[in-house]
């Protein structure tokens, strides 16, 4: 039986056990278990990331139902590629990269569909941006909660107007709170490019949100 002789041993013993426990429930371990056929492990991964991925795609696309579908597609792709997954990246980076690609693909599809959409009929003659069919009510609201809701809607709409190459890093940084390094890995670009794009995106938003700042 081992006996503790110094206070240091007492201090270091629990963290080692904690580390082992965390390792068995890490994302990598869960995906490894999924690879061997453990469905519960995959369910655990889904429960960890379903809200984050759904929210991220929703911020990117501004369409909740579509975001849910794309989030499910993200998990389907993770499941399908479980045998090809490499542990060189964090699992969160991996799944966010899949979600980003799906969201950008969806935005591009929408852009193609927009060419024949009805909004073209409401485009103003002076060449400015087309009006939406259901334009937002810009009148000030009385209740502070409603004001906050209105501000969130406005910022969501403003984010929706950003080009996709600025939108993704801005959401990952300011909404999701990811580090520059992680964003660079997700978007497969350099950290400097990420910083530059985020700065440009904030500049765009400042212009569009001038009334709320």
């Amino acid at each position, binding site marked *: 039986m081992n006996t503790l002789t110094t206070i240091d041993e007492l201090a270091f013993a629990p963290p080692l056990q904690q580390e082992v426990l965390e390792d068995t429930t890490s994302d990598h371990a869960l995906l490894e278990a999924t690879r061997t056929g453990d469905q519960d492990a995959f369910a655990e991964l889904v429960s960890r990331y379903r809200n984050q991925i759904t*929210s991220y795609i929703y911020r990117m696309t501004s369409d909740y139902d579509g975001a*849910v579908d794309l989030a499910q597609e993200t998990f389907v792709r993770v499941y399908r590629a479980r045998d090809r997954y490499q542990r060189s990246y964090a699992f969160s980076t991996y799944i966010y990269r899949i979600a980003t690609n799906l969201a950008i693909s969806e935005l591009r599809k929408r852009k193609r569909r927009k060419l024949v959409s009805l909004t073209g009929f409401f485009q103003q003659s002076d060449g400015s941006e087309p009006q939406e069919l259901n334009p937002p009510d810009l009148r000030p609201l009385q209740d502070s909660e409603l004001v906050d809701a209105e501000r969130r809607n406005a910022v969501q709409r403003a984010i929706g107007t950003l080009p996709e190459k600025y939108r993704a890093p801005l959401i990952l940084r300011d909404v999701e709170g990811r580090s520059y390094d992680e964003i660079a890995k997700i978007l497969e670009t350099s950290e400097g490019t990420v910083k530059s794009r985020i700065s440009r995106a904030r500049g765009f938003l400042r212009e569009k949100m001038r009334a709320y700042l």
Partner: protein
Amino acid sequence: MKERQCEVIRRELDDLTLGDEGSTAVTQHLRECGECREFHQKQTRLRQIVGSLGTVEAPPDFDFRLRARLANESSSAGFHLRAFQWSSAKGFAAVAMLLVFVGGVVYVRTISNPPAGPVAVQREEPVKPPVKPVEDKVVAPVQPPQVALNEVSDTVARKGRGTERVVRPQKRTPVSMDFSSERAETISNSSRQSTIFPIDASQQSFTVSLDDGRGNARTISLPTISFGSQRVIPTRANQFTQKGVWY
């Protein structure tokens, strides 16, 4: 100079995590520069608003729908696999049937049209009165041919090169060959020595079958033989009389 400094400070402010104060240089600059201070306030406010968007929750049936989707994908993958197997089985069956059909056709054609092997021609004794055996080896081609052959195979020609004078046919010219040294071993008539063949006169044609004894046979059909008014008419008056015999 001041613009350059403001640009550097703003870049550093952009990179800061929300709530961080930044370096002392930044703090000092913000105290002195009103534009950068205003920029920083607006930027902080904007980031707070964007950050307040928060997380949108997935619907409660997210897991259920995902499981259904995965199950559907796996079953459809199985369906694709089964469809592939079924289609490949059908393909193999079609190929097998085609092979059987082609083989059958080839077999039937082989049965109905046996390959023409080397033709061995044996001379049949001409129908002529004298029983005297032929002594000369060479028959003059200008004479009326005893046996006229249109074609002689190379095999026979090579085999009989030493003993026979072979005239190779060209453009189906009549060729006379002397087979006096090689008599046919078998003739249809049992009476080998006899040159008289009883023929049923009711037959409209005259057929001679020649066999070289090595399995090669040739049947020659001759047109109806007539001797003018002397054509033999079978007589049924006397049943004991030989039918259709001419001398």
